[in-house]
């Protein structure tokens, strides 16, 4: 038997941390970036179909009109707004601004709420016009 090890403090498991909003936003910025990246494939599909002719375009339009298609479009809009507001926050940090703890919290709350509000506004107007 190996000699009994000295008692050392254990590193806490990831699951015992509470997820602060700022940490969530940092992760979501990267996730939305990656989602926007792969989402560009849909823009390619749409543009190529439009350039190819009415039949190809009808297929895309049909897909975008399905519940999944609508969900993707609303989701893409939100991801873009969210990533954009997160990017503006990065610009503040690049200039050394908004690092005080209470400002960080306030900015995080705004960066969560504003994209949701903008997404709802856009689609309320967008679907209202259609």
């Amino acid at each position, binding site marked *: 038997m190996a000699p009994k090890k000295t008692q050392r403090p254990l590193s806490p498991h990831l699951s015992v941390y509470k997820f602060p909003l700022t940490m969530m936003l940092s992760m979501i910025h990267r996730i939305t970036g990656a989602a926007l990246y792969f989402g560009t494939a849909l823009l390619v599909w749409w543009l190529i179909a439009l*350039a190819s002719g009415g039949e190809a375009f009808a297929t895309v339009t049909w897909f975008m009109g399905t519940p999944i298609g609508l969900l993707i479009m609303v989701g893409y809009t939100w991801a873009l707004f969210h990533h954009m507001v997160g990017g503006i926050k990065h610009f503040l940090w690049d200039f050394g601004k908004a690092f005080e703890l209470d400002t960080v919290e306030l900015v995080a709350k705004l960066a969560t709420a504003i994209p949701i509000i903008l997404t709802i506004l856009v689609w309320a107007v967008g679907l209202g016009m259609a």
Partner: protein
Amino acid sequence: MSSTDKSNMRTPLSKVRGLGSAKDGTSHFWRTRLTALANIPLALFFIYFIASVAGKSYEDALAFIGNPFVAVTLLLFIISGVYHMKLGMQMIIEDYVSGEKSKILSLMLNVFFASAVGLACVFSIFKISFGA
């Protein structure tokens, strides 16, 4: 340690210069910021574009992109956005893909994907604009 080796005249800065993971960190950072700034107005336009074309007929969609202002602004968004997303995905790959072979392969696939997306969009918009 070489930092205490008095016979070595090289400064600490000269020893680390050019040693980032892809050897071009500062320019990468700068280009991310440049494209990110350009993306703000361009992406706002793109969202307006998405909401406007949603549900449009084939003819109306063609006419919408046929408008030179719409076409050029969309092209600007595609150029800036594609370059930005290529830079961003490169950061993600450098952070998570550690094996040398898989890292180089992923970095290549990233360039291929971004180039294909960019060219496909630009070509389609040209074709639509110049009357297909």
